[in-house]
């Protein structure tokens, strides 16, 4: 039963609000009407109910017992509810025996017809009266306000507010997403209207912020989330982005930037200047430390199975730092001179440059370095371990595995069946592509660092796997794939028919031998191409490759195919061998083929070749080389510890660890994958080494290995405007000489290498060359740094996130981005700055001084197509720039304006001064900027076409430079941010203030304030003022120490609750729990925020909401409808 204060005696007080209400609503009539309503004992009207005498009226009636409940019909409760509740309380009643009828915002201001307005007012008052009769006394809950403050945005607004609050002795967290505070103001040269130097007034404040004990400065950080900590305070999660430089240690000496090879456009100089990948936006940055921009692993490096850091050594080559480049290469690759020649370079496939013109010749550049330092050494292991590991096979997989193990201190021993080490590298790849001495050198380097290689030691004969397993800590099998696939056609065993690998091995080990005049090579893979080119070098007159698909499907490297054709190898496509003709005596004499056609795609995704019946034809020949793939020679291992194999005759291993079914025995390379490229074999070796290391240290072999092996990078790079320049071809010996085994390509010269390297687009920005670390005496650089998450609790938040400039490209008719001498105002601002990209000189792109400059106002502002609002600062900064330009260059300056908007102290005077300085002002929106010259004096100029509305003519003004006074826009992520902070955006997308006049820095979210340009375009003066206001709001909150909460929480009438639990999941704040003893729902008032969702859902009406009970709302509904 509701507690009451006696029989309702309701007083109705109708406010005139001057004429605001009275002019539309017939007040006497309304008052008369009010008197007729139930329980109404008093009805009065007054000019301003909110005034003291107005409130006094109410209080008197209350004190003298004429009324005990109050209805005020005036403005919006959002405006004055608090005022009249206080009045009610001071009149001796509980403040909640009061209700307000909004007859101004919702009636007099929005209704045309006076009669209708009066009727509407009556209805709302009737509703309020009915409602208030059912009001109950309530207590406001007090919640303490946490004294710590968060300020988001380190521009002048954030700086100002932070200092004010910190000075008052309160703790402030200042979060800025850029590496430095200062915001846009730091980019300015002079400030209007006083023309004082921006840096001079800003930088002292910036350093104060850094120095202040009460300010915790979090730069290069962003707010991730804001959650309610309790009813009033916030738990804020902040991401501290990895700088890769230790902020506390860096001294800002700048040596790192001096050595950094990567140069990118400087954001701070609006792209007019450049900066390094490790940088500090500007010399007075706060904190005065460096930051490394990393976009992520470059596509080339990600695509490489062993993640060779290509961008690293390429960038260094471009800067002539060849020794450093070698060190970068050796970081992840022990066989660079081999890879530089024969790697199929997946890196180039993903090279971003390829999307522009042609990818870089990455392997060519690597080879250049290894050729330059023929006697380089591999890094020697830093530690030693006793364990010996057996490796079967000295191909790339075996060698890589041995190297990786050796670097970890182990003692690898390689068993090689062949007389020479290197596996397929030595026997399968012809020396004109990979000279033997190159292989020998690489292998010797490996031997030098303590890797033992036993050649002529076939496992299975000389020693058994079982023995290896017993004598060695672990075994890695990498025997490759050396057994030829057969064609399975008649005549395959005739003399003169060779297997491709067999042929290449023989040539490689015993030297060239005569095959006859005409040679056919069957197959389309790299080995087939090698065989064909080798056959030529064996003296064959005519070599033809026979392939059953077409060029498009050939698995061989297109470059190799090209080379082969250059040398004279012929291609025969869509033909498959049927029978090999000849006999024991003559040997092979011809090949009978079938014509093929391409059918539906097969398992490999390539179209399956289908024979055309009856299409047989015969090719006569002296020798046939069959190169259609190989399988591992597992049999040669003899007994093999019951190692499992696949149906393709390869070893079965765990994909992640490469471990076989026998613990401690690993396998990788071609003997697992089937014939594959070198770099993948090396990848297998590396993988195995990692597994073996973990195996021997009894560590988890699987954990955290996702990023091993090739992957594609997610990010995209803007390549627009990259000047086209195709790949620089690598010099090669002339065709005539390509009949010997001398290496075909002779490699890049220094000049060529540098030129080629310069084509790199720096995808990752930082190229991870790590030169900076070598010069940093403070040892501040840490490439392994990760983003950190920090959680803080605060009671108030000030958003000072500022603005972004309008993108002038959106108005193509002004030619920004098309005509080089069209600039944005901020670009010119940077030019005028003596620390700027031009050292304070205002110059055209070609370095000339401009003789005439046009400044176009309202670019992107006051324009329905873009932003309809006025950006407020453009007129004045245009005047400022006009002055600076005239002063520095003596050029004629034309301002094209719609209206000059210069309100503010000393602004008009500034405008007058500019008029006197002889700057031209043309009133009219500019139609276009064009290079279309119609008269001789327009030749070679930019012509600004505009209407001069003051004299009513179209004018064409030829100028050298156009400056676009671009407007201010909300930050790109303003909407995302305001959601994070539970506030709204107003028109134009700027943050919405609680009241345009009376609460300009408050928001609708308690404890969250806004200051500066994030609330709307404004100049520095107003921004600073707002920052002060926001600081004051925060301080008054903290000093009061608590807030009172609207007691509109929900509650359960237990006697009505059926315990259905409908309400529990609905509560967004999990304030509702189930009391299993009583079998009813229970609401935790401390958590309830009073939305009433549970109340609306309660089927039995047990859940109710203070100030919004069902009955109160029913009464209101009846009220508005009872009288119309």
């Amino acid at each position, binding site marked *: 039963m509701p507690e009451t204060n006696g029989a309702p005696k309701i007083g109705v007080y109708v406010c005139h609000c001057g004429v605001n209400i009275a002019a539309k609503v017939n007040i006497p009539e309304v008052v008369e009407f009010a008197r007729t309503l139930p329980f109404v004992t008093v009805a009065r009207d007054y000019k301003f109910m909110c005034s003291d005498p107005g409130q006094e009226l109410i209080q008197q009636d209350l004190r003298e017992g004429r009324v005990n409940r109050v209805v005020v019909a005036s403005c919006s409760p959002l405006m004055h509810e608090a005022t009249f509740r206080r009045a009610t309380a001071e009149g001796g009643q509980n403040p909640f025996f009061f209700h307000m009828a909004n007859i101004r915002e919702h009636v007099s201001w929005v209704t045309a017809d006076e009669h209708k307005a009066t009727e509407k007012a009556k209805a709302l008052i009737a509703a309020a009266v009915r409602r208030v009769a059912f009001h109950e006394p309530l207590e406001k809950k007090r919640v303490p306000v946490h004294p710590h403050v968060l300020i988001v945005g380190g521009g002048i607004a954030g700086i100002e507010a932070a200092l004010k609050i910190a000075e008052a002795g309160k703790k402030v967290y200042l979060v800025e997403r850029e590496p430095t505070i200062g915001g846009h103001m730091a980019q300015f040269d002079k400030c209007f209207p006083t023309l004082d130097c921006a840096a001079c007034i800003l930088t002292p404040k910036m350093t104060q912020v850094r120095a202040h004990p009460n300010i915790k400065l979090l730069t290069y950080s962003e707010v991730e989330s804001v959650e309610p900590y309790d009813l009033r305070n916030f738990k804020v999660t902040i991401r501290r982005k990895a700088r890769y430089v230790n902020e506390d240690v860096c001294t800002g000496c700048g040596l790192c930037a001096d050595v950094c090879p990567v140069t990118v456009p400087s954001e701070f100089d609006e792209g007019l200047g450049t900066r390094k990948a490790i940088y500090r936006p500007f010399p007075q940055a706060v904190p005065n430390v460096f930051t490394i921009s990393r976009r992520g692993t470059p596509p080339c490096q990600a695509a490489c199975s062993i993640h060779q850091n290509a961008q690293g050594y390429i960038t260094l080559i471009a800067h002539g730092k060849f020794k450093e480049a070698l060190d970068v290469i050796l970081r992840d690759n022990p066989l660079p001179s081999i890879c530089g020649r024969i790697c199929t370079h997946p890196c180039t496939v993903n090279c971003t440059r390829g999307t522009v013109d042609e990818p870089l010749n990455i392997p060519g550049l690597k080879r250049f370095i290894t050729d330059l330092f023929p006697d380089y050494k591999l890094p020697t292991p830093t530690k030693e371990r006793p364990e010996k590991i057996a490796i079967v096979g000295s191909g790339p997989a075996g060698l890589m595995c041995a190297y990786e193990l050796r670097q970890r201190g182990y003692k690898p021993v390689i068993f090689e069946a062949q007389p020479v080490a290197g596996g397929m590298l030595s026997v399968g790849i012809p020396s004109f592509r990979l000279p033997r001495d190159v292989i020998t050198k690489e292998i010797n380097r490996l031997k030098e660092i303590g890797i033992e290689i036993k050649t002529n030691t076939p496992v299975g004969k000389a020693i058994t796997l079982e023995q290896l397993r017993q004598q060695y800590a672990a075994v890695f099998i990498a025997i490759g794939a050396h057994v030829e696939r057969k064609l399975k056609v008649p005549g395959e065993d005739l003399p003169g028919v060779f297997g491709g690998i067999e042929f290449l091995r023989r040539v490689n080990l015993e030297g060239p031998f005569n095959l006859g005049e005409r040679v056919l090579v069957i197959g389309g893979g790299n080995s087939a191409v090698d065989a064909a080119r080798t056959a030529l070098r064996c003296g064959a007159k005519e070599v033809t490759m026979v392939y059953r698909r077409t060029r498009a499907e050939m698995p061989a490297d297109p470059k190799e195919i090209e080379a082969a054709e250059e040398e004279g190898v012929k291609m025969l496509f869509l033909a498959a061998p049927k029978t090999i003709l000849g006999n024991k005596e003559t040997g092979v004499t011809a090949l009978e083929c079938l014509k093929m056609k391409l059918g539906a795609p097969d398992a490999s995704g390539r179209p399956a070749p289908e024979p055309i019946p009856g299409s047989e034809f015969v090719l006569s020949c002296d020798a046939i080389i069959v190169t259609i793939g190989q399988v591992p020679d597992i049999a040669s291992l003899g007994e093999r510890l019951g190692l499992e194999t696949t149906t393709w005759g390869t070893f079965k291993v765990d994909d992640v660890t490469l471990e076989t079914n026998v613990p401690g025995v690993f396998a990788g390379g071609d003997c697992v994958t089937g014939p594959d490229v070198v770099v993948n074999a090396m990848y297998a070796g590396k993988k195995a080494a990692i597994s073996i290391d973990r195996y021997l240290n009894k560590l988890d072999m699987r954990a955290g290995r996702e990023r091993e092996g090739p992957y594609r990078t997610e990010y995209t790079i803007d390549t627009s405007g990259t000047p086209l320049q195709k790949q620089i071809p690598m010099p090669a010996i002339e065709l005539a000489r390509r009949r010997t085994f001398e290496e075909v390509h002779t490699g890049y010269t220094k000049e060529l290498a540098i030129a080629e390297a310069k084509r790199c687009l720096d995808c990752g920005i930082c190229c991870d060359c790590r030169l900076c670390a070598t010069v940093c005496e403070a040892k501040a650089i840490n490439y392994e740094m990760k983003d950190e998450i920090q959680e803080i609790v605060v009671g108030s938040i000030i958003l000072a996130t500022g603005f972004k400039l309008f993108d002038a490209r959106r108005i*193509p008719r002004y030619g920004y981005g098309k005509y080089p001498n069209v600039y944005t105002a901020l670009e010119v601002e940077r030019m005028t700055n003596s620390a700027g990209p031009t050292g304070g000189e205002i110059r055209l792109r070609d370095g000339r001084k401009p003789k005439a400059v046009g400044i176009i106002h309202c670019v992107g502002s006051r324009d329905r197509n873009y932003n309809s609002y006025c950006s407020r600062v453009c007129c004045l900064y245009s005047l400022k720039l006009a002055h600076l330009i005239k002063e520095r260059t003596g050029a004629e300056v034309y301002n094209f304006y719609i209206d000059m908007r210069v309100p503010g102290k000393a602004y008009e005077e500034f405008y007058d001064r500019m008029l006197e300085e002889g700057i031209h002002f043309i009133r009219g929106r500019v139609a276009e900027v064009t290079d279309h010259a119609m008269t001789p004096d327009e030749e070679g100029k930019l012509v600004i076409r505009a209407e001069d509305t003051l004299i009513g003519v179209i004018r064409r003004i030829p100028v050298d430079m156009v400056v676009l006074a671009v407007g201010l826009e909300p930050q790109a992520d303003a909407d995302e941010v305001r959601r994070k902070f539970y506030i709204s955006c107003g028109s134009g997308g700027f943050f919405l203030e609680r009241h345009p006049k009376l609460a300009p820095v408050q928001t609708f979210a308690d404890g969250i304030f806004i200051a500066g340009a994030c609330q709307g375009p404004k100049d520095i003066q107003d921004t600073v003022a707002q920052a002060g206001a926001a600081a004051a709001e925060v301080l008054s909150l903290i000093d009061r120490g608590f807030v009172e909460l609207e007691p509109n929480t929900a509650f359960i009438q237990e006697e009505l609750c059926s315990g259905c639990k409908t309400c529990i999941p609905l509560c967004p704040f999990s304030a509702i729990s189930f009391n299993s003893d009583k079998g009813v729902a229970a609401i935790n008032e401390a958590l309830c925020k009073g939305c009433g969702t549970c109340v609306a859902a309660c089927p039995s009406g047990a859940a109710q909401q203070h100030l919004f009970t069902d009955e109160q709302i029913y009464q209101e509904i009846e009220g508005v409808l009872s009288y119309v």
Partner: protein
Amino acid sequence: MKYLYYPGCSLKGTSRGYEESVLAAFEALGVAVDELEDWNCCGATAYMAVDEMKAFALAARNLALAELQDGSEHPTLIAPCSGCYLVLSKTQHYLQEYSEVSRMIDGALQAARLRYARTVHVRHPLDILINEIGVQEIARKVRQPLQGLKVASYYGCQIVRPYAAFDDQVNPKTMDNLMQALGAETVDWPLKTRCCGGSLMGTLPEVGVPLSYILLKEALKRGADVVATACPLCQFNLECYQDKMSHQFKERIEIPVVYFTQLLGLALGVSERRLGMHRLLVPMPTVRGGTRPHA
């Protein structure tokens, strides 16, 4: 993909070369187009100016017929004449946006026992060539590259304004991209969409002629051998008044003004006659073997 094709009056009259070249070029590209049966006046500019609603009604009838004839879910109607393209697009837009127009037009169509379900997509041939067929594909099919020919691509006002359906309003590029795909060079000039004089040529020649003159003078100045147009009226204005300009401005203004589809046809190896190039008043110097005019 099959397309419906709306010729409009010009392509059957003064600008037959446009129709001939559009059809020949599409054929050479292996794209089938069917002429809309029983089509009527598009309701073009003059009509639009006098009585908008009647103009809409006329255009709507064509759209309704297109639905009827095509029968697919989203018929595409190609309108090469800029005027037709604009009026048909505008009608489609108004029918979707403005209930009042919508209601009246449906009534009008009903009187003709027609219904229009608003499904037709009105497109310009340039749009189809660039966004459906694609420059790579076209480049692949080029048999006579327009080596060394310098083209000034002139788009006129109507195909990009007010509806920038497939290209930029101020600096359109589709025709330039097409011309480059054909092996031609394109001159970069700022007047791509500047007024050609339009109907002022007839009504106020003292205003119209200078406007055309500005265009041709700039094209010549930028070293163009030929101006490529996408609009019958532009082509007419720019071609037919060159003598007048020469007299009026005391300088020789002579440059062939062709339909971009005629150049496309040439590059694809279609005979000049089939492209209607014999109809040109300022003959197009042969580009076979890349011989440059004025050279």
